[in-house]
């Protein structure tokens, strides 16, 4: 039977995994973007994911855990054939990250959890939701937000 602590650590590792994937996907989608402003945004968002990835991995190490390693490859969910595909992938990436961080919030609130963990997960969820809104505003300008990010 999985203990609450194991579940919590698995959720944290899963969040780290989505941050690895986010860095990879931004690297893949960036060259497909043609608008200079969007390229700059993608670079900034990629850097934010890179920083969060590193903080999360370092926190796991500090907690005596071995961070899951990145995968050697992250298959694209669909072929990238231009800017719109790149924007769609960026949105999907942020949506996936938001879901992972929301799950960590729920897990941290479901049993014993270190102080600060829930706050960090809430902040990460919010950051991904804001980034997703940036891409959704390009793809779906009439409906740039969703009511329940991460769900």
């Amino acid at each position, binding site marked *: 039977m999985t203990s*609450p*602590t194991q579940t*919590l*650590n698995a959720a*944290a590792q899963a969040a780290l995994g989505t941050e690895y994937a986010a860095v990879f996907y931004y690297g893949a989608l960036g060259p497909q973007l043609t608008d200079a402003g969007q390229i*700059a*945004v993608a670079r*900034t*968002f990629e850097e*934010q994911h890179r920083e*969060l990835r590193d*903080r999360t991995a*370092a*926190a*796991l190490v*500090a*907690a*005596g*855990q071995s961070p899951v390693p990145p995968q050697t490859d992250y298959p694209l969910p669909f072929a990238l054939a231009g800017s719109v595909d790149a924007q769609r992938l960026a949105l999907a990436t942020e949506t996936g990250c*938001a879901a992972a961080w*929301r799950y960590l*919030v*729920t897990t*941290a*609130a*479901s*049993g*014993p*959890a*270190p*102080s*600060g*963990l*829930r*706050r*960090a997960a*809430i*902040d*990460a*969820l*919010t*950051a*991904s*939701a*804001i*980034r*997703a*809104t*940036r891409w959704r*505003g390009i793809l779906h300008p*009439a*409906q*740039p*937000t*969703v*009511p*329940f*990010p*991460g*769900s």
Partner: protein
Amino acid sequence: MSRRAWLGSAGVVAAAASAGALVALVRPDPVSGHPPGVPDWLPAALAREQQLLHGLDAAIRADPTLGVRLAPLRADHAAHLQVLQVLSSRYGPTPAAGGGSSARASTPTPTSVARVRQAELAASRATAAAALTAAGGDAGLLASIAACEATHAAVLT
């Protein structure tokens, strides 16, 4: 919204997830158990959503040209309120929020985009704080609502 503003809002939130905040994942601190009955945060969360809807309606009445821009935000808050009402029904009768009525009377009604944005930011902060004390899935729900309200502030920048 300018690119700089977008980058800033996401960056500030990302920076808030400080290095130390995720430390000690396997050294759990006790989390207080979920109290029986209606959780403390629920009446205030319901009141916040009602207040935000009230403010958005007032802003649209004051300037009908804002309707197209604010309608998606209003729909999000209507969804929040609906879910919280369902949650409330599961917990049983929900007492009025402490100071809820007086808060509505004394809180300036947002009638401009800037004031709506301020109200969204304040709501996001309050809902995130509630997410720190709620239990289980309720915490995830509140964190999600807080994130949504932060996105509202971002699109209004």
